[in-house]
């Protein structure tokens, strides 16, 4: 390639080709395909599963869809922001590289890498035809839908990467828009149905027909709807449908928009230091560490205030819980046709909302608790305190937990509202080992997930959380497949399978726990 506009693109492709990570990703993907196939085939042989080829294809395609979405707000969203954060964009702009050359070099090369990861699967996925229950057309249509969605996701993330100054901001915007794009049409259709059924609006009048059309187009453009149709038995639609065309058009439009706003959005270079979160500027200017918090407790205080958000952050988290509980009540009252709200309902909602909010907050904080130190090269200062790295790490974690675990008060409060339900839950667990197994495995898997996120945050510059989600999702699918295989073949008791999975989770958590400690020591020395 001789065109200057493609110079950076070519260089990125060369680097991508030489990257060991890409080679390992492709190899990992192929191994995963193999491991997905084995249990499905075994289940099909034992008569537990009909149309094994279709199940195989479905599992892989949904896995790809999740991974593409995760890559959207991690891998793709940092395309331009990483240059901004390292104050390198100004230097790039000073060269002969035009904005489009930079966009092609920084983003499109990543897109090509991801496209290759998808395409490399195709020859192996064709085995689904041999397994039975699926045709070539379905495979072509499914992978066409994925490729178009990938193109859209990449360019959406590119636009936000150009517009926003930091990767977290670009990632948050990409996540919000993708979430809306993927599931928003279900909510819009539900709303429309509710308004029609309650005779609040007449869909034949005013702007409603146009709105109905927009919601329909939105639904048809979303890959989930298209894939649902492809996976139906006897699918005979075109290989390239409306979803593919609309995603490609939208993706192209987003790339052009990113090109258009590139110059105004990147003219000034600013320091991308992490902002003070949820704290009043005036108050923090005079803030002091409380007198009793000396020594190790001061480390916890710092992370409570600056990673977890401090008192204001805690207040905000309680606000989120209150908002979600209120939203659940409104949905229940208006959409679920409930006449009254019972204490039992409130208790259940409070327990689930508190648990989910705590889990999400802890995952977000696990990705930051050590990464912020390595990112701003402050670990060497902390490690030279007269404490061991182990003490330091535990104190940091304690600070983060202090800023989030109070949310579990919602679980306690919810439990007090529904004591009978809680009691019966524990009694059921006593009677049914399977329920206890699921409960224990869920907790162990979550602990493993937190450790994985923290570990990845120490070896990756960004994208630790989405990658941890992807790995956990793949690992979960893999274990579930083997669980189903074991049960279908009748060769294993559920208790034994739960025990094996539990031991594997516990061992992996212990290994990661140790690896985090070693990595912290190494990171401090490498600063």
């Amino acid at each position, binding site marked *: 390639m001789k065109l200057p506009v493609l110079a950076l693109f070519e260089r990125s492709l060369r680097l991508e080709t030489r990257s060991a990570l890409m080679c390992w990703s492709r190899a990992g993907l192929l191994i995963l395909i193999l491991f997905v196939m084995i249990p499905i085939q075994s289940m099909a042989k034992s008569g537990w599963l009909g149309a094994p080829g279709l199940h195989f294809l479905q599992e892989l395609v949904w896995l790809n869809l999740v991974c593409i979405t995760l890559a959207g707000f991690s891998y793709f969203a940092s395309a331009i922001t990483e240059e901004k954060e390292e104050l390198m964009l100004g230097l790039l702009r000073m060269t002969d590289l035009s904005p489009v050359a930079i966009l092609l070099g920084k983003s499109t090369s990543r897109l090509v890498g991801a496209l290759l990861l998808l395409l490399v699967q195709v020859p192996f996925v064709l085995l689904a035809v041999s397994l039975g229950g699926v045709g070539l057309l379905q495979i072509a249509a499914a992978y066409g839908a994925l490729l178009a969605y990938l193109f859209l996701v990449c360019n959406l993330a590119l636009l936000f990467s150009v517009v926003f100054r930091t990767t977290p901001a670009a990632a948050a915007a990409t996540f919000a828009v993708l979430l809306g794009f993927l599931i928003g049409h279900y909510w819009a259709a539900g709303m429309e149905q509710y308004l029609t059924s309650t005779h609040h609006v007449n869909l034949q009048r005013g702007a409603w027909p146009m709105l109905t059309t927009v919601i329909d187009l939105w639904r048809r453009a979303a890959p989930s709807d298209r894939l649902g149709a492809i996976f139906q038995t006897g699918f005979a639609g075109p290989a390239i449908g409306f979803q593919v065309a609309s995603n490609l058009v939208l993706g192209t439009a987003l790339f052009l928009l990113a090109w258009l706003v590139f110059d105004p959005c990147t003219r000034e270079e600013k*320091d991308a*230091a*992490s*902002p*003070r979160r949820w704290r009043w500027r005036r108050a*923090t*200017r*005079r*803030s*002091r*560490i409380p*007198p009793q*918090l*000396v*020594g*190790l407790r*001061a*480390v916890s*205080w*710092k992370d409570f205030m*600056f990673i977890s958000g401090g008192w204001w952050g805690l207040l905000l988290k309680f606000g989120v819980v209150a908002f979600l509980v209120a939203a659940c009540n409104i949905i229940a009252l208006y959409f679920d046709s409930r006449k009254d709200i019972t204490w039992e309902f409130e208790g259940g909602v409070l327990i689930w909302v508190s648990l989910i909010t705590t889990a999400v907050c802890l995952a977000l904080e696990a990705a930051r608790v050590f990464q912020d130190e390595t990112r*701003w*090269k*402050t670990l*060497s*200062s*902390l*490690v*030279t*305190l*007269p*404490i*061991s790295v182990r003490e330091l790490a535990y104190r940091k974690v304690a600070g983060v937990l202090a800023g989030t675990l109070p949310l579990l008060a919602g679980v306690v409060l919810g439990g007090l509202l529904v004591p009978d339900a809680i009691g019966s839950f524990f009694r059921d667990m006593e009677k049914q080992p399977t329920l206890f197994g699921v409960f224990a495995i869920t907790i162990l898997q979550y602990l493993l997930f937190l450790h994985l996120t923290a570990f990845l945050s120490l070896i990756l510059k960004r994208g630790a959380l989405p990658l941890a989600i992807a790995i956990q999702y793949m690992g979960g699918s893999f274990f579930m497949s083997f669980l189903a295989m074991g049960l279908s073949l009748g060769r294993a008791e559920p208790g034994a399978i739960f025990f094996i999975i539990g031991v594997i989770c516990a061992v992996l958590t212990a290994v990661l726990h140790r690896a985090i400690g070693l990595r912290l020591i190494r990171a*401090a*020395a490498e*600063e």
Partner: protein
Amino acid sequence: MSESNQPTIDIRGLHHSYKRQQALRDVSFSVEQGSIHGFVGPNGAGKTTTLKILATLLKPQRGTVRVFGFEIVGQYKSVRRKIGFMPDHFSLYRQMTVQEYLDFFAAAYGLDLQERTRVVGDVLVLTDMESRRNDLIKGLSRGMQQRVSLARVLVHDPALLLLDEPASGLDPRARIELMDIIRELRRMGKTIFISSHILSELAMLCDSVTILDRGTVRYSGSISGLSQGNGETADYLLSLAEDHPAAEAALRKVSGVIEVTKPAKGPQYRVSFHKQQTDPNLLLRAVLDSGAQILGFQEIVRHLNQAFMDLTEPGVPPVIMEAADNTPPTPPATDGGGAA
């Protein structure tokens, strides 16, 4: 050995490798209490590795490292209480204010509120950052951030400061002010171990110096010892009113003279001689006896810059410290004989 005689830093036979590359080879030197010790060497010489080992961030793979008599691996907590390490990058929480940052580190070192208030106030005065105490660190200039880094190192009143390139990237005024602060810290009784590339400033600041090249110590001893060469020979520059070949011949006849060369076109001669066999007075007498008219006769002092260039040239064999054997550590000589 009494505590007052004990060297602040004592490194014996230190080796360290990164995968296939050997960063330090049999490094041995010591640093006296209350001195400013310069640590110089070209890029990749192993300075930062040595500093990281001293700061307890890296474990030595072979050899012993003692700080105030504490063994760096087994007694790392005691070592950490005694040292303040300022790395070659800004190690700052940029979303904190200056006050919050210093207050946090003071608290982390276990100082109570009253002590913290006093210490943070003192270090802010010392680093001239009082007026910026409520500013966010990310809004400060590079020089100011460097001062905050230095202030952080001082909050727990360490006896040994390990400073890695503290003046890099600073403007001339900030550099001069930083050097003044370092001198003030020496007056306060602290030992300062400073790695820098700005040799002219180190020469003015330091009492002793270690020159490292490709992981090997080329020199370790006093600055004056370095200036005077190896301590056994001396170089003098003789300036005459006009060329006088008889003077050159007379000099060559003096016992102990190693060589006489003409460094420039004018009537000047460079005389090298063994200090133990002759002295400058005998040389002067020989020149006067030859009938030459002397305009000047002065010792050629080797500056740190020149010494650095001479000692770090490719092919210079490693210099072995006299005390680098298994004998108990001794403080380095303060005269020219301290050359390693």
